[in-house]
């Protein structure tokens, strides 16, 4: 058997998987790109007309789109940042052996197992001004005088979104980092201890660099998910008040389903993916150069 036979066989074996991927990933993506070049009208039918790049020009002049982009960036940055910090902290806490470790781990991971829509409804009641737990607690502690409408002010509504998202998704980061921690050989830590490294430098110089691959994975997953956040704002705030919590995905959905404007909805999606890709490339480059410096 020649080496080229082997390659052909490998290709043949890959074909079903490649075809499946093409059908469920590549075709829809190309379709959306194509749709973003059309203008969609409602006139005794849903009518699409070639529009070139018009939808993108419209996008860049659309104040509402810029606001949703800003909201999404703020939401992604703050929630993912907090989740990474808290996730690492929790992972370090529940990594060592202690009594009831299993139970504590299960408890920490619980929020992640809840469907987002369900937990969003619950958070809606928690933040409710008249019946909510938060106002009740803060009132009892004497920290607020009257009831606060958390979801009724732009700043606090965004804060509520971030809190709910951090509550739900920190366990995901914890899980990944925990796996990373378990992959660090005990001997390495032992060696650092023997060399007399204190706890913080040991974490900073030994554990963190070894965790870097897990952290990157967690960051990438959480970053992409938060950037595409839909269910949480849809249920908790509906994008309000005054559009202050409307995310890019929510805006795309409104265009698709409520305004039946598929061309514009697709343009929003294509533009969003392009921006996210640029961001990811920049991050990878940054991580790459950091890695080389470290080596």
């Amino acid at each position, binding site marked *: 058997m020649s080496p080229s036979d082997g390659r052909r066989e490998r290709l043949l074996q890959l074909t079903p998987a490649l075809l499946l991927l093409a059908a469920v990933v590549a075709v*829809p993506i190309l*379709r959306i790109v194509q*749709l973003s070049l*059309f203008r*969609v*009208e*409602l*006139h*005794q*039918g*849903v*009518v*699409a*007309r*070639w529009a070139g790049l018009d939808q993108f020009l419209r996008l860049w002049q659309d104040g*509402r789109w810029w606001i949703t982009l800003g909201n999404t960036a703020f939401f992604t940055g703050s929630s993912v940042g907090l989740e990474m910090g808290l996730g690492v902290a929790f992972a370090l806490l529940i990594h060592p052996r202690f009594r009831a470790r299993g139970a504590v781990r299960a408890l920490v991971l619980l929020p992640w197992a809840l469907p987002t829509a369900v937990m969003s409804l619950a958070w809606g009641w928690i933040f*409710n*001004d*008249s019946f909510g737990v938060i106002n009740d607690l803060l009132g009892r502690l004497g920290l607020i005088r*009257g*009831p*606060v*409408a*958390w*979801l*009724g*002010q*732009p700043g606090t509504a965004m804060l509520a979104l971030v809190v709910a998202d951090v509550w739900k998704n920190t366990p995901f980061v914890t899980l990944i980092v925990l796996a990373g921690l378990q992959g660090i050989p005990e001997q390495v830590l032992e060696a650092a201890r023997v060399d007399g490294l204190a706890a913080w430098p040991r974490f900073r110089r030994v554990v963190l660099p070894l965790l870097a691959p897990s952290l990157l994975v967690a960051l990438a997953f959480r970053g992409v998910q938060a950037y595409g956040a839909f269910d949480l704002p849809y249920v908790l*705030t*509906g*994008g*309000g*008040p*005054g*559009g*202050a919590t409307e995310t890019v995905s929510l805006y795309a959905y*409104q265009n698709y*389903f*409520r*305004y*039946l*404007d*598929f061309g514009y909805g697709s343009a929003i999606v294509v533009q969003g993916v392009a921006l996210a890709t640029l961001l990811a490339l920049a991050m990878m480059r940054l991580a790459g150069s950091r890695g080389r410096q470290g080596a």
Partner: protein
Amino acid sequence: MKQTVMAAWAAWALSTASCHPAAEVGARTTTLSLMLPPSERPFWEPIARRFERNHPGVRVDLVEGAQSTDLREDLYTSSLLARDPTFDLVYGDVTWTPKFAAAGWLLPLDDRLSEQERGHFLPAALAAGEYEGRLYRVPMRTDVGLLYFRRDLLQRAGRAPPETFEQLVATARALQSPPAVWGFVWQGKQYEGLICNYLEILRGHGGFWVDPATREVGLDHAEAVAALEFMVRCVREEPISPPGVTTYQEEESRRLFQDGRAVFLRNWPYAWSLAQSADSPIRDRVGVLPMMRIRDARAGGTLGGWGLGISAFSRHPDLAMAFIRDATSLEGQRDLCGPTGYAPARRDAYEDPVLLAANPFLTELERLHEHAVARPAVARYALASDILQRHLSAALAGSIDARRALSAAARETRAMLKGSRGLTRAPGSAR
């Protein structure tokens, strides 16, 4: 050819392998199907069973959709976009008519419903089923925005029911003791309900949103600014509404009122039968008014309501029309509106002894439909509504003042109407 791109895309993207019971179930049975909110299903059962008895070989399938109006709209949208014949009938909200009709998803009913038959319905309810001069939807039940008040509290304080916005504020302020009891609760969350609240306050100030005939936008006129300033005043300086009112939908506000924690409530007719239920703490202590007005203007509630249309993709349009005729008969109105307290769409229902016995409130309700405000029938109504919602909500949250919010809303609405107007005129766009 390009016109069909969208349709082809839609069919391709969304027609998952859905089964068509009509085609498969035995050769003799025909199935008619419609989707409705789960809460209404029990009251549609007798209507469906009666139709089946009168039409042997026909089965009526009442599909429970999501309880939320927006989600049911999405479900219908997905199905119709895929030209899927699953739903023969569309049980839709007033705001769906222009969108579904403009998309070509509903059959025009002009030839199917005679002039005489149309005369049976409340004119406003029937008009809400029209788009660009054609009828697409027959009304089943109507809704109108009402102002509920605590008769007992007003009587005890020796105050007459208010008629103007100023009187409402004065009475609310005199009788409230926040945060235990608030003066006035309504729906201020950024959603369709906020539009309904604003529209009737706008009407009471003599203003308008979009003129149906000229398509003029009235949002930056002085009346529109005054209407929004009134709402802002309710929550901000010397508030008569709880701060959370800007996050409330119907139920949050109704619960406060029903718990005895509010003097005035803006809501739909359904709140009446709940206020009068056996375990209600405010039973027999509630009165109903039309929304307030300034001295020289007319008061009127926002018109809502539900009706039946025929899907353009139905395989049994004639049978579907027969069902609509049955459902919207007086008997159908008794089945749906008797036990629920919904407002019927037929005029004779308001004089029907059976319905009046079940719901004496009907006599008042018919009067409250006078001067009801309809929402503009534009194809992208959802976009028009979102534009206004966002700016109203921003003003209520205090991020922007009323005048600036509304001039931005007016500018965006005009740009949107210009776009869609050009599109109605576009040559060769007819299919």
